[in-house]
C-alpha cells in the first residue's frame, strides 16, 4: 500500500534548494512518437501496416517483414509482470536521489515485452494496468499500476513523479473573474490543494462570484493583471516562490474577423492578454518555478495553459482571437523547451467555445466552467501534458490531425461572417 502523503512541512531555510536532475531524456526519433502520445496519456505502440506485427522498442522498420509502414495504435493497457526488481543504485542522479526504485518486465496483452516503472502495490506475477506518461525529462515512459484502485494509490512515489496532482500543492489561478477560474478554484480545493492563489486584475472592478470566493478557506487574493508587466512582476515577487502549479485562466476573446473590425485595438487587447499575458507570466514566474522544480514535496510541478482549439487552425468568426491563441500556443511550445530539464510539465488544455458571454449566440455544445475545471484537474492528477476538452475540440483535433489543409479550407468556406 502506498504510504499516504503527509502535508509537506515548511522548507528549512538553511538547506539549499535542490537543483533539478532528470531521468535520461535521450530518445530516437521513433521513440519520440511514443513520447508524443504519452504526453496525451495515450498508450500506443507501433504496428506494421503490412503484417500487423507489434514493435517495441520503437523501430524504423518492421522486424517481422521489413516494411517501413509502422503506425502508432492505441493498445489495451493490460499486462502481466514477468519479473521485478528494486534498484538500490543507479548511475543517474535523478534516480539516485529517489532510491530505492522499482522496475519490472511486463508482458503486455498485445504481446510486446516492455520495461516499466512499478507502482508499490504491484509485484511479479500480477496482472497490471500499464499507462504511458511523460517523466521529468519530458519523455514518454511506461508505468504498471494495480488494475483496481488501492488505498492512497496516487500518493505512490513513482506515480507522483509522473503526475502533477494538486494534493498538498499550492496553485495560482491567474484570473478568477472567469467562470472557469472560479470553478477551478473550488475543484482544486476539493482535490486537496494546500492553497489557491486567486489572481484578480483591477480589483476595483467588482465581479460576480467574488463573495463566494472570499468565503473559501485556503485561498488568497493576489492582484494580478497579465496585461501589465509591473503587476505580474509584483505578483511573482510576492508569491512566485510558493507557486507549485500555475494555471493561466486569463483569456480575452471577442467575436470578429479581421475585416469585420475597425482597427487593431481589440486585436491588440486579445494579444495583450492571450499572448503577452502568457509571455509576462512566463518571464516572471517561469524562472522561479524552474528553480524550484526539485524542492521535495513542495516543488513546482506544472504550468497549465488554456487555449482555444482554434489556436490550431483559424476560425474566421473569431478570427483575430484565433490568431492571438495561435501566437500564444506557439509561445507555449517555446516555453516547453525552456522548462525542459527542470521537470516542470507544461500542460496545454485545448478547448472548444466556452459557455460565456462572448460565445452566447453560438449553439451548443459549449463548455461550462465545471467541465473545464474538471478536465484541468484531471490532467494534473494524471500528469497529461495535452488534453482536448469537449466534443468540439476532440472533433477538431481529429480533423486537424487528419489533414490540416482540408480543415483550413473547411473553416474558410463554412464560416458565416456577419
Amino acid at each position, binding site marked *: 500500500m502506498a504510504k499516504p502523503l503527509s502535508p509537506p512541512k515548511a522548507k528549512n531555510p538553511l538547506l539549499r534548494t535542490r537543483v533539478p536532475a532528470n531521468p535520461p531524456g535521450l530518445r530516437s526519433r521513433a*521513440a519520440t512518437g511514443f513520447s508524443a502520445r504519452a504526453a496525451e496519456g495515450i498508450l500506443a505502440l507501433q504496428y506494421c501496416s503490412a503484417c500487423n506485427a507489434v514493435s517495441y*522498442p520503437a523501430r524504423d522498420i518492421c522486424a517481422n517483414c521489413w516494411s517501413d509502414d509502422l503506425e502508432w495504435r492505441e493498445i489495451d493497457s493490460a499486462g502481466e509482470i514477468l519479473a521485478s526488481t528494486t534498484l538500490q*543504485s*543507479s548511475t*543517474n542522479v535523478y*534516480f539516485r536521489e529517489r532510491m530505492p*526504485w522499482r*522496475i519490472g518486465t511486463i508482458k503486455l496483452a498485445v504481446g510486446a515485452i516492455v520495461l516499466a*516503472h512499478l507502482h508499490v502495490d504491484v509485484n511479479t506475477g500480477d496482472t497490471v494496468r500499464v499507462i504511458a506518461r511523460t517523466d521529468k525529462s519530458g519523455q514518454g*515512459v511506461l508505468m504498471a499500476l494495480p488494475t483496481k484502485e488501492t488505498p492512497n494509490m496516487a500518493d505512490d512515489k513513482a506515480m507522483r513523479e509522473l503526475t502533477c496532482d494538486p494534493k498538498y500543492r499550492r496553485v495560482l489561478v491567474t484570473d478568477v473573474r472567469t467562470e472557469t477560474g472560479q470553478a477551478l478554484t473550488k475543484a482544486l480545493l476539493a482535490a486537496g490543494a494546500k492553497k489557491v492563489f486567486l489572481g484578480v486584475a483591477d480589483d476595483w472592478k467588482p465581479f460576480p462570484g467574488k463573495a463566494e470566493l472570499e468565503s473559501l478557506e485556503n485561498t488568497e487574493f493576489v492582484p494580478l493583471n497579465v496585461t501589465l508587466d509591473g503587476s505580474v512582476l509584483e505578483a511573482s515577487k510576492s508569491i512566485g516562490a510558493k507557486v507549485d502549479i500555475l494555471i493561466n485562466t486569463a483569456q480575452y476573446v471577442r467575436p470578429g474577423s479581421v475585416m469585420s473590425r475597425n482597427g487593431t485595438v481589440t486585436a491588440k487587447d486579445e494579444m495583450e492578454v492571450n499572448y503577452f499575458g502568457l509571455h509576462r507570466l512566463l518571464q516572471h514566474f517561469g524562472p522561479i518555478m524552474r528553480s524550484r522544480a526539485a524542492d521535495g514535496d513542495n516543488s513546482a510541478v506544472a504550468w497549465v495553459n488554456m487555449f482555444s482549439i482554434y489556436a490550431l487552425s483559424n476560425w474566421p468568426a473569431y478570427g483575430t482571437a484565433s490568431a492571438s491563441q495561435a501566437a500564444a500556443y506557439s509561445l507555449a511550445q517555446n516555453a516547453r523547451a525552456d522548462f525542459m530539464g527542470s521537470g516542470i510539465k507544461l500542460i496545454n488544455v485545448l478547448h472548444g467555445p466556452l459557455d460565456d458571454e462572448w460565445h452566447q449566440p453560438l449553439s451548443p455544445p459549449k463548455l461550462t466552467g465545471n467541465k473545464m475545471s474538471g478536465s484541468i484537474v484531471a490532467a494534473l492528477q494524471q500528469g497529461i501534458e495535452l488534453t482536448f476538452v469537449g466534443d468540439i475540440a476532440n472533433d477538431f483535433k481529429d480533423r486537424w490531425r487528419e489533414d490540416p489543409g482540408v480543415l483550413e479550407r473547411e473553416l474558410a468556406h463554412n464560416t458565416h461572417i456577419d
Partner: protein
Amino acid sequence: MTVKRMSYEGVVAVAPVTVPYIRYSHQTAHWWLGKALKALSDATGLRSADIDGYCVSSFDLFPDTAVGLTQHLGLSPRWLDHIPMGGASGVVGLRRAARAVQSGDAEVVGCISADSNHVDAFRNMLTAFSRFSQDASFPYGSGGPNGNFALLTDAYMKTYGAKREDFGKICVAQRENALKFPHALMKKPLTLDQYMSARPIAEPIHLFDCVMPCAGAEGFLVMSEENAKAMNLPYANILSTIERHNAFTEDPIQLRGGWAVDKDDLWSMAGVQPSQAKFLQTYDDYPVISMMQFEDLGFCEKGEAPDFVRDNTLEVGGSFPHNTSGGQLSVGQAGAAGGYLGLTEGLRQITGQALGAQVENCDVGVVAGFGMINFDRGLCSAAAVLGSA
C-alpha cells in the same frame, strides 16, 4: 543450408597477453590497445610490419574505430576488423581471425581488446550504449546492466528454483581462483556468509554478484600452426566455434542464450563431449548468466544448473574448474576486454602457461562469450572449444 563447415585445422592461437588492470585510468582506450600490442610484440618478437591483420574491440574508442587506430598506432594491415560485441568479442574475434589466416587473407592477426575507465566513464557508456537501451531501458531507473540482470535473475530463480546460495557458490569459487591470479583486482578471500550478507544492488542482485568496472587490455595472436612452431610459440588448436545473435526472440524474458541454438554444432564439430572439457570459462558479468551457459552449452540440462552447481566444485582442482582466473567477478571488467578475459585465460590453461592455478591434463577446454544487453536481453552469444597442441 547444407554447406559443411570447414575445420580450423592448421590455424592456432598464441601469445595470450594481459595489460594489468587498474580500477580507474586517465589513459584512453588507444593507450591501452597500444600497450596490448606492445605486450604481444614483447611476447613474440613480432613487430608492426610482421602483423598483417588486426581485430579490435573497445567501447571507448569513439570517435575512432579500428580504422583510426591504424594511423594512431602505425599499423598497415591488409585485413582489419572491428568487433563491437562486448562480452562475445573474444571468441568472435578468434573465429574471424582464424578464417582470415586459414584463407590466406592474413598471415598473422593481432586480436586486441581494451577499455579505459575514466571516472564516470561507465555512466557515459551506458547513456549511449544502444538505441533500444536508450529508448526503452535506461529511462527506467538507469540501473544499467544491474537492472536488466536483476530482472533476468528474478525470473530465472522463480522458474528454475535457483537460490542466492547457488550464485554465491559460483562467486566464492571464482574468488578462490582469483587469489592465485596475479592480475585480479580482488585480493581478499570471499566467504559465502559475506556474499549472503552483502548489500542489495538491485534485488535479487547483491554486491558480489556484480563486476567492478576497471581499465585493462587483453590480446592474442592467430597464425598458422606452422608459423607458431617455427617461432617456437606454445599454441592452442581451435576445435570449433559458434556465434549467434538475437536468438529466441519469442522468449518473453531471457532464460536461455543463443548457445542453445548452436551447441550441437559446437560439440560435433569439435568431436568431443562436454564431459571431456577440463575447464569452462563463462562470460560472468553476473552469476546467473554463467548458470545459463552451463545449461545452454550442454554441461547440464535446461533448468538444472542450480543442481549442477550444488553437485560440483568449481575451483581449479575441483570437479568442474570454472573461470579459472577468477573471471570478471574477481578480476574486474575492463570494458570490452572483459570479452577477452576468458579466452586469454583459456589459451594460457590449454598451453600450460597459467599465471595462477593450472588445470591439470588440460587438453580440452571451453570458452564462452555473451554480450550486449540491447534492451531487455543480451543479444550476442559465442563459444569456442580449444584443444592442446
